């Protein structure tokens, strides 16, 4: 499993990380000075929280459909 790294240079980066089957799905933020490393296959980055929340709701709906 390859890993992906997020290392903000200028400002906080918001992210959504998820597995291919969406059984793993979580969001968060990384501040300047911190480094995020994940072994999950899907990483999406956002410059603001609103965009992240919009995308997260889409993914959560997708996961809901998969589990129905």
């Amino acid at each position, binding site marked *: *499993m390859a890993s992906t790294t997020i290392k903000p240079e200028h400002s906080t980066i918001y992210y959504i990380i998820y597995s291919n089957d969406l059984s793993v799905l979580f969001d968060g933020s990384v501040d300047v000075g911190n480094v*995020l*490393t*994940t*072994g999950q296959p899907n990483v999406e980055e956002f410059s603001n929280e609103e965009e992240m929340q919009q995308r997260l709701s889409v993914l959560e709906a997708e996961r809901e459909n998969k589990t129905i």
Partner: protein
Amino acid sequence: MKIGNLDITNVKIGTTAVSKVFIGSDQVYPNTDSEFIFKINTSLGDGLNRYRFTPSHAGAVNYIIDWGDSSTTVVTSAVSSTHFYSTSGIYEIKINVTSGILNYQLGFNSPDYAKPFIVTNAGTYKPSVFSSAFYCIGGCAGFINIADTFFLSSNSNNCFQSIQILNLNLNLDNCTKLNSAFRATTSTDWSFLLDTDIPLISTMSSMMSHSVNNFDSTTYQLLLIHWTGWNGTTATKSLQSNVPAHFGSAQYEIGGQSEDARNYLTSTLGWTITDGGGI
């Protein structure tokens, strides 16, 4: 620990000093006090000469509160207990749970959160929910200074958030959630984590986040090796997969075993780790 009436202060196996002794899961040395003990200062917060102990309950519970002024209250079903002191000051409160479930809430969930507390003894009772137990924000100032051990419950999110740790021992064997557990928390020494294992932990999001948190790189490097049981080649301990974990700004050693252990967590177990990168 006592044998008969004799206090045992130096426990050794051969010539090696032993720092803790357990009988089953009960720590009997150091400190044999069964009570949960903390101190409050009535002159702060609302300044009234009273303290309101408001734990959360999950079913029937029986416990005794020693208010520290030679008075006690036996509690059988009340949700909260208020005690009025004759004079303002610092009082040591002891909680002795005799049956049932009692979950402590001394931090912002307590109506008297602004009367700073210092926890001096975990006691032998193990709360079923430890989440937010000592979560200190908004004018709350809490300290932990215990020689015995807290056995954290499955959900221990936010448990020590924003407090100051002077001395702490933890058992995390049954813990699954440590989200924000040490967010904005400072400790004079984080090495107490090196005595823990985390076989059931599934999430540690924001665990060490916030600029105030002072989790150090030396302990972090040792912790990566300890929690994985890294033997130089592979991990020897069982851990959960896909765990998000936040280690603040602590840094692993590039080219060292802590980097190998960290790579194992992310690449093999699918962990998502936030830290200060490598040095």
